[in-house]
């Protein structure tokens, strides 16, 4: 399973049209253990820079991570 560290994050309040129903939602750039970075949604508890996160699942092509 993919894991990584939160490189940066934000909570989006003003969403684009297709994600209005999801707002507010947390978005993070995750530095993956295996190398590289990925922009992902955070499921559940809010995270801050440096937090360890684990991959949960892909939903409609969007990767979701959760605080480890």
């Amino acid at each position, binding site marked *: 399973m993919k894991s990584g560290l939160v490189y940066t994050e934000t909570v989006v309040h*003003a969403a684009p*049209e297709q994600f209005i129903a999801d707002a507010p939602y947390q978005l993070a750039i995750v530095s993956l253990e295996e190398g590289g970075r990925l922009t992902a949604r955070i499921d559940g508890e809010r995270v801050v820079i440096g937090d360890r996160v684990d991959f949960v699942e892909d939903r409609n092509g969007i990767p979701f991570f959760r605080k480890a």
Partner: protein
Amino acid sequence: MRPVAIIGIGKTAFGAFPDRDLRSLAVEAGQKCLADAHVSPSQVEAYYLGNFAGPSFVGQNHLAPYIAGAMGITGVPCTRFEAACASSGSAFYHGVSSVAAGLNDVVLVAGVEKMTSQTTPKVTEILAGAGDTCGEVRAGATFPALFAMIARRHMYQYGTTREMLAAVAVKNHENGAKNPLAHMRKVITMAQALNGKPISEPLTVFDCSLISDGAAAVLIAPLDRAAEFTDKPVKVLGVAQTSDYVALDQKDDITTFRAVVTAAQKAYKMAGVTPQDIQFAEVHDCFTIAEIVAIEDLGFVKKGDGGPYELAGCTRLTGPLPINTSGGLKSKGHPVGATGVGQICDLVYQLRGEAGERQLARHSLGLAQNLGGSGATAVVTILGAV
């Protein structure tokens, strides 16, 4: 390479104009510019137009000849440049290139965007098209979200605070209130800026530039012909356009825009000046954090010192290095495709001594920095009084 001069400028007001269409705005700016240089449409040898998303915002394509024709300019190359928010900066770079190379003498470079006919969520979605739609945008990133993530990381690495971001907004509104062509001509307080509606944390509505309609144009020609058109030419001392990856998550360090750093280095070298020589600048404050990153990347302050520099008031009209005397994108407005050329016009107002209440005492060397997306395109221009 031939030296190039700006021989005329023209701008519409920036704002929300429900009764104006895209073409009429671009035509107004173009005609004002031609009148400023006493040039007739038949003398224009090329029309270079910056526009980000006319097809999405208003459903019109083939924009350059569409607008040029309405001004009576036909039979010459008319080309649209798209580089997100740096669209007209890019048009300017290529216009200068063509004059410097000797392909053309008199080139009209313009920018236009008509944004306010769409709802804010729709505008947010169209703007997001300047990001990576297969990655960050698909995951739900908006432009405020991308810059919010830059802000968070900048805060984490350098101790930048919410107050430092707010200081940028307060200062730019202070300047914009003095600009008759600005979209939002009102001052705001630090308390207002800190307590705005959250858009994408930590950014509030007061950290975000405005959704605006507007157009701007400049006329360029070889420096040795400038006197035929104007007694107040402005010299293009340096101009450079560079690029970087589109997706924010592909950049090693998101607290700096590598494209800005490299464009600045090239422009300084071409102009034969250093960052310390620059007297004033228009920088791309699409978000407050972007102004802080810009003044660092341009070499005005050390990396990490941008926030404290802004908070100390050093970038105000009365400070040692006035930044965004026009009010910036924050207060003047940000009709995306018009912004790059709009910045050039704002430098020219200062260089010619025509900036009214905002006029600076030292106004012979200015710099403009135009950013596309989250830093995939950067254009840096250095202009000097002749």
